[in-house]
């Protein structure tokens, strides 16, 4: 059978009757022996929830039978709360007497043409019936499910009979595709027991589902209403019971209606009824259909390990004993698999399950492991523990780009955290202050091949975002390599042999008694690699035929998100060589920093007396200049900048002076700062910038709020301690001290204002972009590049004829296109 289309609508009572297998009339669930009563809400015809029982309708046992609907004949019609609004609009649109639509005959066509929503159409209906000239009474919707016409409340029976009288032709005019009387319930479908299974507690006592509780209430009141009507009870009693039935059915559909007290369990807990099962993040849609839980995964805290390769992940032994990979037993691997089985579930590397050729799963236990190992033949599948070198997917939320999930090789390790190399900290945006990450084990050979070929860390070194390396050296790697590759850094033979061998045992050691740091670095480069670039400070870096001739290696060469050297290496030699180079070079850097020691001190930021004096003078000059500017401004003599008012011109000119001063101070600092590890970090790009050092050691500078000098606070001034309209440096947020010397109270407050604004901006921005991302993902999640190169959506509509309209993968090209000449030169050399 092919499904041609799906129509969403409302079932009529005929349909409900057809689907039903049992008529529910009894309020009791079980008899004295504990067997479900026929005609009760746990009727055996509605399906099975207990093991060993067969369904009375279809004969299936638990799992085979998904359950069958029953029905409940309502004594009086009931309004469905969620349809009350629609019913109300419909009532308003039709004459109460002749049941025709309240639109004049000549307007019918144009009314239909409009194709508007029901709510909009209702606004343009007449106040007087154009067909029988009856006046329309004033309508009022009484929440949650009653309708008032004039002074009278309509009961559900009248409402239903009114809706029944509406003709199909009129419904077509308002494009209403359902028979409206079906919006009012006369018959209630009873969901199968599989939808509301009861739980048997240890004590043998049964605990029923919330829906069953609610349905019991409905059945009880429905029966009571019937008895009272049959007995000819007074009208008010019947009305009360009817209203109670309406309440129970309303809360059965939705237990969170405004103005209606929620139905509660005997314990006082609010019942979870149908709407509550579907709604919210944990509901059926968002929680179970759009997102599912998976097997073969692990999650723990992560910690750094610079001594495992960048495409490895350290997995705790305890996790390794839980996660498995299915292995087909062949003649070639049967011996080693048997060993796994014999190890059992508790000794790594063991196995947890075997799957026999007939598809039966069997758990391996200490009792059965020998027997299973013996019967193992070709055709069996063994789910063995993950082992070193197996592929896995490693992920950290929020998964903002494709490098948030990458393929890592597994490495089993002691202790309870997952370990990752520091170089991949950038693409994951991870640190180790308690970050947790997820690990998934691909189960099929296809998925294992895919992760290895497409998702492995080395294949993701270059980011498609900016056509450069996103994986590279960070922090100490950079200070280390910066120190090694300094000019005139010589190593004696015993030193350099130890340094190189601590990193790599394969590299040939030069037969010399002493070599430079640059030579050590060169050992790790491919022998025919040439490169010319710049260091962070702007000096030349030259590599010729695998030899670092000039320059220091820093962030600009091998840093994450910046490294030009890594970029070129990846382009010319591919992922594997780049990975090994990066791994060696970072270990080398760390080893070296450990040798020389790398600590920082507050005294690193002490500046010489002359330097301090000079900075003081610069600030003094700035003050004077700004005061002069302000005086010019007040006398109206200020030079106007094109397109700016007097005030703006002044501000721009002050800003220029401030920038100049900051530059001056920075220059003085570079001259008067002593060589220190703090400075090394700034220069190599490991952490911090010269500006940070200037701000701590010399002066913080102008504090900004709302992209200008400070302006908020009191009327025309920031603090009550200032004069109104004082626009001097001090009263507009200039901080002349450094953090080390300490700020004045005013300065401190200015800094706090700035900090608060940045903090707010940051959190608002991440929230905003997070939501944008969510919407984009929602819109594009099932598009894919087909084999013919077109991009198509879920129903095969073409979205783009060539990916990105140029068919270029930014992670595989050089900035601005493919360098055909270079590739050709290499091929035909």
């Amino acid at each position, binding site marked *: 059978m092919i499904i041609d289309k799906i129509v969403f609508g409302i079932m009529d009572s005929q349909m409900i009757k057809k689907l039903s297998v049992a008529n529910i009339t009894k309020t009791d669930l079980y008899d004295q022996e504990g067997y479900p009563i026929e005609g009760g809400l746990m009727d055996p015809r509605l399906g099975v929830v207990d093991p060993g029982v067969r369904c009375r309708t279809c004969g299936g046992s638990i799992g085979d039978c998904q359950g069958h609907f029953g029905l409940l004949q309502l004594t009086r019609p009931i309004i469905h709360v969620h349809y009350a609004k629609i019913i109300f609009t419909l009532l308003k649109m039709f004459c109460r007497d002749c049941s025709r639509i309240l639109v004049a005959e000549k307007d019918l066509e144009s009314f239909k043409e409009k194709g508007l929503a029901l709510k909009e159409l209702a606004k343009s209906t007449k106040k007087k019936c154009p067909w029988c000239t009856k006046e329309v009474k004033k309508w009022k919707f009484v929440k949650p499910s009653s309708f008032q016409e004039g002074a009278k409340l309509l009961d559900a029976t009248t409402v239903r009979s009114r809706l029944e009288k509406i003709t199909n032709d009129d419904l077509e005019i308002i494009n209403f595709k359902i028979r409206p009387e079906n919006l009012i319930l006369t018959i209630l479908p009873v969901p199968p027991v599989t939808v509301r299974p009861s739980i048997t507690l240890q004590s043998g006592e049964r605990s029923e589902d919330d829906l069953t509780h609610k349905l019991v209430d409905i059945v009880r009141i429905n029966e009571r209403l019937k008895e009272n009507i049959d007995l000819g009870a007074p009208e008010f009693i019947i009305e009360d019971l009817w209203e109670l039935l309406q309440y129970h059915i309303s809360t059965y559909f939705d237990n969170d209606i405004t103005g209606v007290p929620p139905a509660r369990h005997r314990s006082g807990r609010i019942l979870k009824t149908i709407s509550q099962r579907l709604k919210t993040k944990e509901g059926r849609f968002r929680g179970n259909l759009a997102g599912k839980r998976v097997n073969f995964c692990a999650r723990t805290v992560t910690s750094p390990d610079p001594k495992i390769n960048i495409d490895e992940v350290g997995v705790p032994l305890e996790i390794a004993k839980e996660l498995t990979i299915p292995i087909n037993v062949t003649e070639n691997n049967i011996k080693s698999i048997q060993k796994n089985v014999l190890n059992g579930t508790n000794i790594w590397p063991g196995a947890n399950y075997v799957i026999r050729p007939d598809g039966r799963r069997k758990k391996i236990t200490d009792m059965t492991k020998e027997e299973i190992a013996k019967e193992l033949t070709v055709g069996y599948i063994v789910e063995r523990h993950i082992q070193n070198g197996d592929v896995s997917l490693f992920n950290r939320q929020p998964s903002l780009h494709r490098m948030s999930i990458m393929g890592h090789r597994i490495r089993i390790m002691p202790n309870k955290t997952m370990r990752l190399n520091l170089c991949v900290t950038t693409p994951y945006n991870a640190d180790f202050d308690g970050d947790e990450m997820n690990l998934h084990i691909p189960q099929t050979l296809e998925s294992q091949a895919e992760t290895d070929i497409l998702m492995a860390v080395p294949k993701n070194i270059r980011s498609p975002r900016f056509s450069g390396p996103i994986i590279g050296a960070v922090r100490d790697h950079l200070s280390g390599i910066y120190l090694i590759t300094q000019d005139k850094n010589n190593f004696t033979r015993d030193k350099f042999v130890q340094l190189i061998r601590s990193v790599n045992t394969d590299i040939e050691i030069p037969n010399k008694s002493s070599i430079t740091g640059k030579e050590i670095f060169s050992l790790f480069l491919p022998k025919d690699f040439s490169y010319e670039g710049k260091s962070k400070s702007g000096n030349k870096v030259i590599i010729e035929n695998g030899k670092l001739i000039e320059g220091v290696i820093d962030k600009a060469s091998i840093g994450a998100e910046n490294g030009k050297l890594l970029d070129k290496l990846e382009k010319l030699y591919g992922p594997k060589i780049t990975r090994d180079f990066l791994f060696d070079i970072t270990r080398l850097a760390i080893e070296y920093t450990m040798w020389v020691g790398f600590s920082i001190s507050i005294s690193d930021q002490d500046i010489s007396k002359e330097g301090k004096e000079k900075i003081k003078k610069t600030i003094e000059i700035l003050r004077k200049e700004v005061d002069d500017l302000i005086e010019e401004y007040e006398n109206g003599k200020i030079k106007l900048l094109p397109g700016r008012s007097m005030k703006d011109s002044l501000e721009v000119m002050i800003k220029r002076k401030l920038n100049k001063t900051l530059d001056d101070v920075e220059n003085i600092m570079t001259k008067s700062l002593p060589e220190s590890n703090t400075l090394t970090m700034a220069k190599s790009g490991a952490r911090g910038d010269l500006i940070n050092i200037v701000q701590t050691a010399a002066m913080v500078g102008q504090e900004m709020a709302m992209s200008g000098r400070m302006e908020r606070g009191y009327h025309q001034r920031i603090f009550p301690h200032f004069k109104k309209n004082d626009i001097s440096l001090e009263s507009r947020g200039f901080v002349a001290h450094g953090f080390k010397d300490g700020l004045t109270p005013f300065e401190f407050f200015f800094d706090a204002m700035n900090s608060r604004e940045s903090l707010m901006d940051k959190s608002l921005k991440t929230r905003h972009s997070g939501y944008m991302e969510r919407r984009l993902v929602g819109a594009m999640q099932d598009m894919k590049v087909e084999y*013919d190169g*077109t991009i*198509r959506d879920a129903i*095969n*509509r*073409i*979205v*783009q*004829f*060539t990916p990105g*309209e*140029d*068919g*270029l993968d930014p992670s595989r090209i050089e900035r*601005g*296109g493919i360098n055909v000449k270079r590739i050709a030169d290499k091929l035909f050399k």
Partner: protein
Amino acid sequence: MADFNISKHNIVPKHEILTSDQKKEVLEKYGITLKQLPRITDKDPMVKLLEAKIEDVLKITRKSETAGESIYYRVVVKGK
């Protein structure tokens, strides 16, 4: 203003109506029906200018910084 020809503007890419043979060729090339092509409404200024009919296929040739030229097809549909 009434005589302003939008197709001459430098940010408007080249639009052409495909002949029925060309149209068939495109559909066959991608193995699709008209419904699977990207759409353009009949209210689009360029469609009006070319006097394209509904179900006509337009070939749009855009200039691209990286690819030189990129070709896109759209089918004219009734717009709202």
